[in-house]
């Protein structure tokens, strides 16, 4: 094997090298110069994003173990964008709170991204599992990054994440082991026979449970609110989207490529999971008073909608799932970054902390409103098209009842999303003066805002890119 054969893996390789580079620079740099590490990471991520258009990334590695095509590239771009936005948003916070541990922070983040970026291309279980864990393990550490230094509950949050993550991984591995044992091969294409037996279905559903943990499907979602609440907000901004995108990529590649013949087993279960997820996510979001917990349940509910696209099946449904994920990245990271900005100003992380934001920082409030509208699916911001398209996909696949349910819960969701907007626009606050927002954080919020509004005004290019990307899946 020559080095040129690794060409399709280039994005992952760049990120892995970058992780090592950051670690190396961290060793030699003076403590006062460490904030440069964040900028270095951001620059590398931006460069990688640009490189994804310039490098030839198509092709197979190791005779089909890994496949580079539009599918893997599209997802890589979404994940790298999420990483970049999270890094920019957290730059000042990381430098201020953990001045001596900045290098490790970015290294861990980059390693996790490496796993994610390589995940969608995997066509073989061993590689798949390695990427999956490379993505997951650094996140356990990142979630625990605060230790106990600000009196909150990070260790508990991280421990919950770790324990439930471990349990889920056990389930995934068990399912994978069953499949490999029965098939004698770990290639996706050979994993499930044309006429599968009952044990195949059991294995498939165990794998589904493992994936469901990663993307936060109810009832595998219980770690989500606790972890979101306890972890540092910039980490949560990353954690709330990037692994989800990867999780959906994994779900698609395993279930659509390897297990189409098992659809009779996993589709009804998936249907049930979507219903439970929508109900739990939307209803439990209503009584929440903490913004990050609210966003956690909102995230659970959103996953229900994204799964609707997946359930819509075929190429269109999968493509609309991709579109939804891309719009979700902007709106969700944007939301968390605003929560972060307000919390940084010392106002706390409750809904009431946003009181009077429209008067204090009108632009920040406007951005907040756009993100909320996008998450709620109001015309004409990006989230509207996302919901519209997944509904269309579900409708075409004959899931009219799910469209009805989704529309119903979209109304319920309006209640809690607009509750947040109400705090910012209607409620008054005793505190005067604008919320201070650091430059890189402001930049990240602006990018999220542009993405949310821009894709709302002109969704077509992304829709077409998503449709093209799905071709790579088959």
């Amino acid at each position: 094997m020559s080095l040129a054969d690794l060409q399709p893996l280039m994005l992952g390789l760049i990120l892995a090298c970058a992780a090592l580079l950051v670690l190396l620079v961290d060793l030699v740099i003076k403590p006062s110069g460490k904030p440069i590490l964040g900028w270095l990471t951001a620059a590398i991520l931006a460069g990688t994003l640009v490189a994804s258009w310039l490098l030839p990334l198509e092709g197979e590695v190791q005779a089909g173990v890994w496949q580079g095509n539009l599918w893997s590239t599209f997802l890589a771009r979404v994940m790298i964008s999420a990483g970049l936005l999270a890094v920019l948003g957290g730059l000042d916070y990381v430098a201020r709170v953990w001045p001596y541990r900045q290098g490790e922070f970015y290294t861990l983040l980059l390693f996790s991204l490496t796993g994610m970026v390589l995940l969608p291309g995997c066509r073989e279980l061993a590689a798949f599992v390695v990427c999956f864990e490379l993505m997951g393990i650094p996140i356990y550490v990142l979630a625990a990054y605060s230790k106990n230094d600000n009196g909150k509950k990070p260790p508990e949050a991280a421990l919950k994440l770790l324990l439930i993550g471990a349990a889920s991984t056990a389930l995934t591995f068990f399912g994978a082991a069953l499949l490999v044992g029965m098939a004698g091969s770990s290639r996706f294409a050979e994993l499930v026979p044309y006429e599968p037996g009952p044990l195949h279905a059991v294995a498939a559903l165990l794998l589904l449970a493992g994936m469901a943990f990663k993307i936060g499907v109810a009832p595998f979602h219980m770690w989500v609110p606790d972890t979101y609440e306890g972890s540092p907000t910039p980490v949560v901004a990353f954690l709330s989207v990037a692994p989800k995108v990867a999780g959906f990529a994994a779900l698609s590649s395993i279930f659509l490529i390897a297990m189409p013949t098992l659809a009779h087993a996993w589709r009804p279960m998936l249907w049930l999971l979507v219903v439970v997820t929508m109900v739990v996510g939307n209803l439990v979001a209503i009584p929440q008073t903490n913004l990050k917990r609210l966003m956690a349940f909102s995230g659970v509910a959103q996953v229900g909608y994204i799964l609707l696209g997946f359930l819509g099946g075929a190429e269109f449904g999968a493509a609309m799932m991709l579109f939804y994920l891309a719009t979700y990245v902007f709106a969700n990271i944007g939301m968390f970054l605003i929560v972060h900005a307000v919390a940084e100003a010392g106002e706390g992380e409750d809904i009431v902390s946003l009181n009077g934001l429209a008067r204090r920082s009108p632009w920040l409030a406007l951005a907040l409103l756009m993100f909320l509208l996008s998450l709620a699916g109001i015309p004409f911001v990006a989230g509207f098209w996302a919901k519209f398209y997944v509904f269309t996909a579900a409708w075409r696949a004959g899931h009219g009842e799910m469209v009805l349910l989704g529309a119903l819960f979209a109304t319920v969701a309006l209640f809690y999303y607009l509750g947040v907007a109400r705090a910012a626009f209607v409620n008054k606050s005793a505190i005067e003066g604008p919320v201070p927002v650091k430059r890189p954080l402001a930049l990240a919020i602006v990018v999220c805002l542009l993405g949310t509004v821009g894709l709302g005004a002109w969704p077509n290019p992304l829709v077409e890119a998503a449709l093209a990307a799905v071709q790579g899946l088959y």
Partner: protein
Amino acid sequence: MSPLLMAALATLAIPAGMTLLFGVVPMLRRTGKPAAILSILAATTVLGIAGWLFATWLGNPTESLQIATYWLTMGGQPLGQVGVHLDGISVSMLLVVATVAWCVQLFSLGYLSDEPPNGLGRYFTYQSLFLFSMNLLVLAPDLMQLFIGWELVGATSYLLIGFWYPKPAAAKAAIKAFVVTKFADSGLILGLMVLAVASGGFAWDAPITPATAEIVAGLLFVAVMGKSAQFPLHIWLPDAMQGPTPVSALLHAATMVAAGVYLIVRADPIFSAAVHVREFMTYLGAFTALFAAIIATVQTDIKKVLAYSTCSQLGYMISGLGAGSLLGGYFHLTTHAFFKALLFLAAGAVIHAVHSNEFTDMGGLFKKLKFVAIAFIFGSLSLAGVPGLAGFYSKDLILEAVHESGNHFALFALLLTAGLTAFYMTRTVVKTFLGQMSHSAEHAHGPGPSMTLPLLVLLVPTIALGWAAGPFATLFGKPYEFHMGLVGYTAIALGLGGIALGYLVYGLGALAFLPRLFKPVATLANSSVMDELWQSVYEIGGQTPSRAAAWTDRYIVDGLMNFIGWLTIVLGQQLRKLQTGDVQDYLYAVFGAAALLALFGGWR
């Protein structure tokens, strides 16, 4: 495309462009005078085009040109058109509109000289919008576009009546006019729906059965009653005099209120098939004519006299159209447009001079405002039907037609109206221009050239248009032959008698018991009995179902919604308890759910 059609399109594009320009460039609008001059230049261009088109059609009266495109489709079937339709009727109406609009815009420049620049700009923005809307209505190739223009002129009317909106009376009058005409317009919408369902389109000559024609014509006529101020929907027109006087001249005398008459003329194929509706029109028009004329005799506000007179004359036209005289109704529309605009503008010059609408602040103004007085007197004589002047010829056509139709009630009412009209116009002339000079009249100042020129222009058709009845009729493709019958002579006698009586009573102070006789009429006319009637109709017919709907909405619909909301919140709170915070419970959930999934997989 023929240059004629291009020119016709320009009569839409130029005023529309002006409106847009003033709308999007507030800097220009707020300059006031420059905006006004720009608007007047645009109106001048439109006038030139209209004149050219009219001249062309006089040479070739039967020509009909159209450019239109379908913009509305229903179930794949083309429905509504947008474009311009040129024939003798639309071209002549275009000229009427353009002439009066030009005169009024020019007159406004002097009349509103005290207006701040901002207000002046706003005024001319509305004026341009009106010109566009009215032309859109006049040139409509089908009923759908006419409807669009109809609503647009209604909106402009609202804006212009309420032009001095800080004045509560003006704001109220604007709302009243809007609500009343909108209420009537529901008939137009319903009529259009019936027409579209029955014929698959909105064409003037849609093929429909006589029974359908009765329904459609009846519904359309409801809208006409609103727009053309027929009893009992006339109540908005007197109040509309709260707008600036040139606006009253243009919208509420000459053109917009005549749109109802124009609609009937255009949709003649539908109306001529609707025999019963036409009979009703003859009666209602005649009744309105008489009713409004009686009220006009007791008004003390010069604009109110003219407003009721407009109601009365519109009744004339409607009655004539009902009796089947298309030419009579339309010709009276034309002559009335000119002489009533002249009367209103002359009245405007008087009001401008004495700063009041009331007769008590006028009197003896002939000496101060000679030209204005002469113009007003000629307008009055034309309106009174003095032989040789325009109003005489058109009124005579209507009377002959009603006579021929054999409707004795209508004929009697209209003849009586003719006498009353002469009487109240004489009264107005006397009270305004003759007799004792009031205090404010002594300080009156004459109008500037921008106000006298329009009067001069309008004076020409007021006197001479009747002589052109022959060529005018050719535009209709109908022969016209002047002949005087018994009805004509009676009308002349009544008209002259009315003038004589008016002068006797108000000029010479004889027969003093007559004005006292009118007292009860005056009390009744100036009371708000009509308004109260409508109020109770609204309360019984409109508010009762509204209250019922409100009750259903509040207690049943909202109740259901509140219940669902309550249920959602309670469910949320209960589900929340599952989130215990203990990692053991979370793991139970994970493994429990995974076991269920696996069991299901094995079962399948």
